[in-house]
């Protein structure tokens, strides 16, 4: 296996020794660029009390290129589609090498706390969200209980 850049080793170390509250990220034994991630649903959001599994992959060109992050747990969210892909600017056009795994995961957590139905990825969910926010939130809560049990 090609040697891992120092930066990745360092970030991994820091993630393990000084984890972000409510977020865990562990590299896979066979591939240190692949992380198994869990994020707790933020308090006060419909995702509260849920534990969401994600996968994170650092491409060869990281940090020049953004990490690839995807939800593995089903989630009812206007910016996350049913394949788990996330619509988040810092993962696409606004990526900067000054960001890191830690900040990316925090942003994902923040996205759970404040969905943005005006820039949707899952169109049907976003529509539902705009037309009937209460109903959509109830559904998100229901899905959380159903798929993201702790």
């Amino acid at each position, binding site marked *: 296996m*090609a*040697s891992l850049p120092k930066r990745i*080793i*360092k970030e991994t170390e820091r993630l393990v020794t000084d984890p972000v509250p409510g977020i865990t990220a562990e590299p896979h034994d066979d591939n240190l660029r692949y992380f198994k991630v869990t994020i707790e649903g933020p308090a006060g959001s419909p995702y509260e009390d849920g534990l969401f599994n994600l996968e994170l992959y650092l491409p060869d060109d990281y940090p020049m290129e953004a990490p690839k992050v*995807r939800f593995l747990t089903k989630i009812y969210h206007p910016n996350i589609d049913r394949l788990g892909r996330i619509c988040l600017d810092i993962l696409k056009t606004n990526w900067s090498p000054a960001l890191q795994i830690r900040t990316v995961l925090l942003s994902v957590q923040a996205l759970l706390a404040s969905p943005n139905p005006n820039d949707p990825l899952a169109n049907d969910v976003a529509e539902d969200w705009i037309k009937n926010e209460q109903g959509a939130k109830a559904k998100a809560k229901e899905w959380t209980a159903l798929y993201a049990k702790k």
Partner: protein
Amino acid sequence: MENQISDASDFTHSRIPKLSQLDTLLRCHICKDFLKVPVLTPCGHTFCSLCIREYISVQAKCPLCLTELRESMLRSEFLVSEIVESYKVVRDDLLDILKQRKESPESDPDSSIIEVGSDPEDSLIVNDNQSDDTSDDIKILQSGKPISLKRIYTDITSSSLRTAPRSKYFKTNIPMKRSSTASRIDSILKKPVELVPCPICEKYFPVKELERTHLDECLTLQSLDNKLTPLTKTAEKDEVVSKGSTVIPPNKSLLSRSLWRMKPREEEGEKEEKVSFVDKYINSTTDIEHQRLPKLDFPSMTITQIKQKLSNLGLSTTGTKQNMMARYNYYEILWNSNFCDSLNPVNVSELKRQLLNWEASRKVHNGTNLSTSIGNLMTLRGTHKQNDYKKLLDNFKTDKFNRKEWCILFRKQFRRLIKDAKKGQTSRTLNADHIQEFDIEEQLTDPDLSNDLFDKLDKTPQNPQNP
């Protein structure tokens, strides 16, 4: 390689946790390591020259504030460069000392009655003022002049301990003074000692020390003092000491041990570094012999022209057009970073070695990616299939890659994966290979086949959005 990884958090459990901020500030936000050949952007941010040049070739904006940025806007920062270099030299020692002091139990300064000296005329009697609630106020009694230990102690620590790392930047004669203080402390603390004044500086010292070391030091110091202006702190300390007191640090063994330990290192490195960091900064100039390498407009160039350009620079002309372009681009970054930004540029052959290393690491990287991960994923039976696969794999990352054949070749495997994916939807834990699979699926942009694949993916049974 492992032990070279340092982090700002190293300081969080030391005596001065706030140093982690300094440590962070001296690092590049791209590689997270200490700034190497730092350059300044017009928006006021600093990165390693190589890091930022590499990033600009991908995305022309500042990683921190996202404002537009071009390579020509970068300016080298010699001062920051030398600050980082001189910090790196002392970092380990600094950390060592700061951790050591933290681990030691806090000693209580006013827990002792120390009698210094036996001759009533010359001696200093240090008495513990136990009734005093202001705690560390040991009175040092000599001809009715009480001196607070607290003050002496802070003076000692601030002038000797704290200036230890700084003295590397501000070249002064401090180490000499400190070492004399250290030995003084050390010898005084062992037992009550007889103190006699030094004929040169008129301060009090134990006889033995005065004879053995202090006289020599004092003489050298005096000659140095005539040439250099001493730091004000040193002067303050002298004042206190010359009032006729001895110095009792609260934590004698540790303090003296750490001072002793650093003394030889400091002194031997002092002169050399003085020359290297400060003078290097003052005498810094950019290399004018070497011209900046220009960006090439590859789309308008023929292969022969590109080869011509590369061989003019003495670079290899092997590989595809893509390879040659990548080679030139990286060499241009190396070259410009080295000759335009660096304070001590390396020669051209070293640059070429770096380029070869870079190409080799890329090859290894791509090699593992393709032949092992994909190979493991797509276990093939039958030699002729294996050959087809290898032929296709050769062009995997180029335009010539035949997606259709690839899909036909792996149809079975893809079907199996889709089946597995459907099965495992509810309770799956993906491993490293799965994400590779995901990547491969995304690469199948051939309309006929990949649509087919994604349609199948979409018809997952438990999908409530697609009832």
